[in-house]
């Protein structure tokens, strides 16, 4: 059976891939998907710790409740973020982050 370290390694790997995507990609929707991947990688850590820290023979459900909250926040975040992207596209006709530089001043 896989050990806790292996789960933490997979989670770290997924988080690093998501971070690489956020830095590399220019399409704001894909950047948003990579953010989702990073959130999911963090929840893998929580579930792994919850399973490996048995309390009275049961997993520690505090961690899984936290994952439940993360998924809720992620769903709300996606809805608001995509609405912002649509509004942005209406105003600028682009979703390429290199063309969206007006905040630079």
């Amino acid at each position, binding site marked *: 059976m896989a050990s*806790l*370290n292996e789960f933490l390694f997979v989670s770290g790997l997924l*988080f690093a891939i998501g*971070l690489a995507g956020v830095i590399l990609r220019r399409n704001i929707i894909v950047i948003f998907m990579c953010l989702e991947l990073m959130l999911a990688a963090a*929840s893998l850590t929580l579930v792994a710790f919850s*399973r490996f820290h048995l309390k009275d*023979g049961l997993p520690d459900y505090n961690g899984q409740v936290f994952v439940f909250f993360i*998924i*809720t926040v992620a769903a709300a975040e996606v809805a608001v973020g995509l609405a912002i992207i649509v509004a942005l596209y209406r105003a600028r006709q682009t979703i390429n982050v290199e063309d969206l530089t007006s905040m630079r001043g």
Partner: protein
Amino acid sequence: MDTLAFYLFAFLSVAGGVLLVALRNPVSSALAMVLSFVGLAGLFIGLNAYFVGIVQILVYAGAIMVLFIFIIMLLDLNDEETVKFRSSSVLAGIIIPLLLLAQILGVIQAGHQGEEAEFEEIDVASMKVSAEKFVRNDDDGKALPRSEQSAIYKSLTHEKSPKLPDTNLIGHTIFKSYNFPLQVMGALLLVATIGVVVLSKRTHKQAPSES
């Protein structure tokens, strides 16, 4: 969980993540994201977190992916990214995640010197023991008959097929220890819904030209 299944699902989720970053077409990226999340859900189910695994598939592969695809189709982003990556950003995109990964590996190595967290199976005997916490007693302190016990207790001590009632246990934890955060979540979802409606309402006034 079988070690083979762990490696299969871990490979699936990492491969999905790599494809998500590497594919040029946003629609393929969205499908790669779903692949990655299905792998993650498999890992969750292997960790006896059945409820979280199912919710992961329902919410991410069901709801969020559909939203992403819908927006991609709505904005008509079929043209692929033709812009060449600048070498500085490629360098940053490779070096910063590698540094992060090295840091995580260092922490994992340092945190487990000598002792390794063991994977303990949740078997029938340990479930019987843990069921003691969920016994309902009457006024005299005697245990009530089985028909009046909670669903968690009944499921943990079932004679033929004891199961881990993890949905019930998560509900138990949420409503006992996280009642206020749960209500904050409800308020958050309401605010997000109202915010999305306000954001996506088309204003008939002429937008300022210098936006």
